[in-house]
């Protein structure tokens, strides 16, 4: 039976739900809370209450790749410089977790990564700690603005510099947007299963803008196709911008050069064409997570793998892929 695109996408979303990995998520949460407590105890009155961000905080996580970020807002007078703040947090976490042999701690683009050693189940928990400093004294509580440090040349910023951001605003930007979240999760599934390097934040902002500027409606496929069409038609335009809700001066589309914008537009075009041409192609771009495939009577037929690999007599072999004579 031919695949029904919307039903398939529904199955895809279901199979990528975080609920399937409750145990793993709990482990992450526990570790995050552990770090949170350690930070509060170390920096006590120098910080405001740490909060969760990343895909988990935004409810756009997928179970094949998710971040549990912990944002630690420092008070304006806690450190002289943003760099000192970043290094101090790194030194603390390094001493606390790395030197004690519990985890590997390393400086990342804007965060400090704490990768805990594999536990008895073989799970490796990774928590990214993002330190940020209040812009001006006593403004954080109302404004939520923070300066974050760039430890690498990234997203158009140079190592050693810092920028204003408002992570809370970024989280709020996607609040109560269930339709957008579904499409964002689908695009993240595409990104992660197809080896695409686009930033999730870029896909997130593109989706939200598409819903805002275009008429995105219909079933799952209708909405996804609407967003992909919007990206295809608009991302190459010179005047196209993607304002970071955390810093209106930051145009996130600039993280792509013109070739990258053209390539993303072409990819969207190709995907739409291939899927419209033959619905089965949707399974390549948006695959079901086979580990958590939901097999319901009304779900689409998601038979993966080769027909030849199904149970049955294997002589004569019925490998369907050719090019190599077997004798």
């Amino acid at each position, binding site marked *: 039976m031919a*695949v029904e695109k919307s039903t398939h996408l529904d199955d895809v979303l279901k199979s990528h739900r975080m609920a399937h990995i409750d145990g793993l998520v709990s482990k992450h949460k526990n570790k995050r809370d552990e770090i949170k407590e350690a930070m509060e105890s170390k920096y006590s009155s120098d910080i405001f209450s740490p909060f969760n961000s990343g895909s988990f905080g935004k409810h756009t996580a997928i179970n094949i790749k998710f971040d549990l970020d912990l944002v630690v807002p420092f008070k304006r007078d806690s450190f002289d410089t943003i760099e000192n703040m970043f290094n101090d947090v790194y030194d603390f976490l390094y001493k606390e977790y790395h030197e004690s042999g519990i985890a590997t701690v390393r400086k990342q683009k804007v965060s400090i990564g704490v990768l805990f050693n594999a536990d008895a189940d073989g799970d490796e928990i990774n928590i990214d700690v993002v330190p940020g400093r209040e812009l001006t004294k006593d403004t954080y509580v109302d404004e939520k603005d923070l300066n974050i440090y760039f430890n690498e040349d990234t997203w158009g910023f140079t190592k050693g510099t810092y920028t204003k951001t408002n992570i809370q605003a970024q989280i709020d930007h996607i609040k109560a947007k269930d339709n957008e979240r579904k499409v964002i999760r689908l695009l993240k599934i595409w990104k992660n*299963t*197809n*080896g695409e390097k686009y930033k999730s934040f870029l896909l997130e902002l593109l989706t939200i803008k598409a819903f805002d500027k275009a008429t995105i409606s219909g079933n799952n496929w209708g909405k996804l196709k609407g967003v992909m069409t919007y990206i295809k038609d608009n991302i190459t335009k010179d005047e196209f911008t993607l304002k970071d809700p955390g810093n209106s001066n930051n145009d996130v589309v600039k993280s792509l050069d013109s070739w990258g914008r053209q*390539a993303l537009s*072409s*990819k969207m075009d*190709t*995907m739409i064409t*291939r899927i419209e041409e*033959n619905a*089965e*192609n949707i*399974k*390549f*771009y948006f*695959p079901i997570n086979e580990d958590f495939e939901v097999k319901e009577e009304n779900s689409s037929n998601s*038979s*993966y*793998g*080769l*027909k*030849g*690999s199904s149970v049955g007599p294997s*002589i*004569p*072999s*019925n*490998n*369907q*892929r*050719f*090019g*190599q*004579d*077997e*004798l």
Partner: protein
Amino acid sequence: MNFDLINSTISKIPFVKKINNIEQREFSIVGNVEILLEELQDSLSFDFQINLEYPLKSYDSESINFSNKDLVSYNHVMQNGNICIHTSHSISITEKLKIDFNALKDWIIKYIVNQDEDLNYEHIVAAESPINDISYSFIFTECKESFSKGELGTVKLSLLNDGMLRGRTNYNFFIKKFIPISGDSKNCQWNQYYNRQKTQLEGLYYYVEDAPVTQGRFAYTKWSELSLPTDLLNLLHEYERENFNKLRGKVIPLFIGYKTVGTEIHWQAALLEVGKFPIEGVAERINGRKNGKWNSFLVDAEISWGLTRNSSYEYFFGRGVFSKELTEKKILIIGIGAVGSMIAQTLTRSGCKYIDFIDHDIKEPENVCRSEYRFANGITNKTAELEKILYEISPFLNSAKLNDNYFEKLVKSFYTDPERQKKFIDDLKPYDLIVDCSTDNDLMYVLNSLELETELINLSITNHAKELICAFHPNIYKFVNNQFSNVLNNDVEDLYEPTGCWSPTFRASYNDINTLVQLALKHLNRIISGEKAKNNFVIQEADNSLKIIEF
């Protein structure tokens, strides 16, 4: 031949001032024309000969020729005074005569009036001649090292084969290296296979720097015209004396080197027959009295030139190669059946320098009809035969022997072990590109699951070669499976089932498969050179044309 038509047409050509002595012979019309152009003070005289084939060309040459021995110093004039022209096709005698006489006129204006120099270097003209009815040819490449004027030494050669050339036996040699009298060897840039061939002939070399020619391009015809140094003549004398009995009649080449373009060197081979070296001993005299010493001098004998060719990579592949980004890659092909062997051979012919391949399979006679394998090599390991075939094609391809069990045993047994995974990734790191043509689903899964730092491409075809599927790491396993299981209508019923065999195979001819493979390689070359985006693709025949469907 229509004498009157030819005569009247030539006489009407405006710049033909006069026709002299035109006459019909048994197989040609000959005569002389005086050409007068505005640009010339005096008319120029050319003998002409129009052969029976006219206006058709014969053996790639015009069947009309113009000659004037006095013009031999000008460009494109042969030693016998023939002017070298190539003109357009026409089946009309009158039109062709006009075309050919106009070509003569253009040659006069370009080379006599304007004294133009050609930008393109043309080799010197040396008439090759056999010795004892056997021809000799020598192939060489540029060496990395330079040669200095007056440098002397020996040359090591190996025989490619004794083939036929213009009705005679021809010994085809290639030069392995030049060994100067003092200093290190200078190796030709062949691959490891040719470099390690046994030396089967030794020659001598002398680097003169300036081409050994008269009138700019005609090779000397007499030994006495070559100013060979006494050291070399004495060396020849000693060689002949020592080997007279043992090697009498054997031909050894003397390579005379000279500069062509930039730092490029060409070697002209003068052939020497042991026992007939063109030297004579002359007694040294002081005040008219012999002092007991003898010196060697060249005699006034004809030079027998051998055929030489510079076969450096740039010339060998000068007519067409894949992009440098592809030819410089270190490539591993997994599975060298129909698709894999075609890919290996095409990459080799298109200039790739490093291709290793792995396959545990045996080549059977039934494989020959749709792969690059040959009946003549019998039943043999595919890897051994392919290596032989590829080396026969390209002297610039390097291929290393691999452990046939690497993927089948090592990788498949231990791919889940994280430590081993790192090792496999490291093992494959020396390659820039791995092409998996094995059609092995298990291996496809295993390789796709490794976090390879090497580019990996997977290629396979559907039954009847209806489609070719090409996927790039890390989007291989899922894509290929979906194509075969859900998207393409692969016919798995109409298979070829050979008698006595439990393993049916797909139906498709060499032509069916190679048509797809060549288009896939064309597209891959564009992807690798950066001209096209790296997207998985399917090649499909639709409406009598092939379509590349990108994903």
